[in-house]
């Protein structure tokens, strides 16, 4: 058993910030909806609105991070291994079967996660943001831009809340289906994920490859894998030499 660094600092900050905000939004949201009574109504509204704005700021940062790091590609849905993953949860998990999809730096999510998170990011969250803003700004039919009633907006917002709550419940349970009961949770807190020994080699190799691919002149020339590896190793070697020389120069002075 070895640990690999899978979740970066911002990624974890984003995840936990988001979870805290969604938790606050859910509790106060259902207060406002009249289902629960955790907070005094006016307080629930204030917390809900403030959390919503905080969430919007976080979303802007998260989008920036996803775009600049190419991490958004992790969420592209795929049908590959979809059935295997389903089979695992429905059958394999009870029979000590291994996870059908290995976690990789470039592919941290299994096909079910991909489709779920993709739907969250593309459908649910934007819907909640848009209806939430309409709730805030067009709730009184007096503005220049009028909506006939808050009803449609409010009902869509409520539907989204139920879907998010369902997601949260299932998500919390599936955390326990990692290597051990708590390994997924620990990974999201520390960034380090426990993986099998043979996976470590793959992950490191992939990491090197990714680094190489991200250097523009190389990716543009579309060299073969062997050439790439050579190039990358050369580059690494050169860098190493440069650093050594610098240090030596410094010592001479």
């Amino acid at each position, binding site marked *: 058993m070895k640990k690999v660094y899978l979740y970066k600092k911002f990624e974890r900050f984003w995840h936990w910030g988001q979870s805290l905000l969604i938790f606050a939004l859910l509790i106060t949201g259902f207060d406002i909806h*009249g289902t629960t009574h955790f907070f005094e109504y006016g307080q629930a509204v204030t917390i809900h609105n403030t959390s919503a704005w905080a969430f919007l700021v976080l979303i802007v940062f998260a989008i920036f991070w996803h775009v600049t790091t190419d991490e958004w590609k992790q969420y592209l849905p795929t049908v590959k291994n979809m059935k295997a993953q389903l089979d695992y949860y429905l059958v394999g998990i*009870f029979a*000590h079967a291994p996870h059908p999809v290995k976690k990789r730096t470039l592919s941290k999510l299994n096909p079910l996660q991909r489709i779920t998170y993709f739907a969250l990011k593309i459908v649910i969250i934007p819907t909640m943001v848009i209806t939430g803003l309409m709730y805030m700004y067009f709730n009184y039919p007096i503005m220049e831009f009028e909506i006939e009633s808050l009803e449609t907006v*409010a009902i869509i917002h409520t539907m989204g809340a*139920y*879907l998010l709550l369902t997601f949260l419940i299932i998500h919390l349970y599936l955390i326990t289906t990692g290597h051990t*009961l708590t390994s997924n949770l620990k990974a999201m807190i520390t960034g380090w994920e426990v993986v099998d020994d043979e996976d470590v080699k793959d992950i490191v190799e992939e990491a090197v490859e990714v680094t190489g691919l991200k250097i523009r002149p190389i990716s543009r020339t579309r060299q073969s894998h062997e050439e790439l590896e050579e190039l990358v190793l050369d580059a690494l070697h050169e860098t190493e030499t440069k650093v050594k020389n610098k240090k030596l120069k410094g010592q001479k002075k």
Partner: protein
Amino acid sequence: MKKLTLIVALFCTTHWLFANNGINKDSIRSFPMNEYVYKSGNTNNPSADHSKFAILQQPFASAHDATAACLSCHTERDKEIMATSHWHWRRSEKLEGKGVVSLGKANIINNFCIGITGSEATCTRCHIGYGWTDSSFDFTDPLNIDCLVCHDKTGTYKKKPGGAGYPAESVNLNFVSQHVGSPGRENCGVCHFLGGGGNNVKHGDLDIAMLDCSREVDVHMTTEGENMSCVDCHITEKHQIPGKVYALSSENKNRTTCEQCHTDKPHQSTILNEHGLRVACQTCHIPEYAKANGTKMIWDWSTAGRLDEHGNPMHENDADGNHNYLSIKGNFVYNDHVIPEYFWFNGIANHQLITDKITTIPVQMNTLYGSYNDKGAHQKSHAPAKIWPVKVHRGKQIYDTVNMTLIQPKLWDKESGKGAYWTDFDWNKAAELGMAACGMPYSGEYGFVETEMYWPLNHQVSPASESLKCIDCHSRPNSRLASLNDFYLPGRDFNPIVETAGVSLILVSIIGIAFHAFCRIVFGGKCKIDNP
């Protein structure tokens, strides 16, 4: 870990901030105020001592002479008075579907004492004039003006019952006229508190207790506080007193508003200020009315006329000492600390005139217009309809079962035997004489019909700490707005399909998870203990 602590700390701080963001200051001075000078900053002294004027020391042969004395110095004031609706008891109003009509206390029908026609001499005890006994009253004679009823500062001026506005014999006109001043609440209150035949009968928020009341009863007029009088809000110019009586007014003009002092953004919270776009200030700040004394809620004329064993009119009282039966008027129900009913109201009202056919039961004496979708600019009103607290007075009163109109009966006369209901107890005769005085036909057949009259509430504003809380409306079981169903109210409303589907989805996932976890435990699958 550091980060987690930071997040928790941040959350706690923000939570603390919000917790302190509520309205905890009860001081009126923390509110933004507009065009109002606090009493403490006001040094307005009277410019003349009326007791030194010789003309007020001569004996007055009649009340008209006192008026002449007033007008000898205050020339032109009579013209101002005679241009007011306090003088004419009517004014031009544009009614939906009825055009411009001249309407007011002089000719309107209500569901209390119904109307003044035929009984003027007793009703005009509240008129600012002398001698309005019937339609022959001269509205152009300045000497018919009663200056003293509004300007008396002695508290000794009284009008005679059934005296058509003339003062009682006991009144010393010299004494009163030598001690005059700006009208105080006693002067307005004598009619506006006691209208309808008793204290607080009509409005429910205008009560003789407001001469000296606590902050809980009226935060503005309380003698414990700012001690405001009527004219501090109803700021009068040239004897034109603004602030039309909502129950009688049909057009949204000439109002006295909270905003005139408090601005339209009086709260620190933006959300509360936004509520003001569609919720009247009064809705939250008058959580209940008739806070000091009961007000009349129901008046059933159909039971009137029951006499005692000697054949005399009688009365019965309820536990609070309010009449619940009078032979001349029928059954009443009084109530105090009443929770208002709520209506959309854009400031425009219609009226059931004596000429109008009865089309709905209960008859709406003054239909309040407005709805959620009445946004002002695109509708007939200039301002969007707001949710208003309203006292609804429910009545059962006489109507013509053939002509299907309300009936104005003749109720009062000095002597019995002249057909007035209060002396002779004959509905048929009273209806005949009353309708004749109105110039209306009467078929000879009468019955009693249920009526409703709406009194939007404005006075007896409570301290901020007593105002409605969010949950009073934004809640499912006991929302005060339960009857206003033409809009979506968060906290009260929901879509049953979405709720059922949502809750089912959550239940199914929880059951599924429980089953899945159970299987994992039973088959010993992935439930390894985390080894350190």
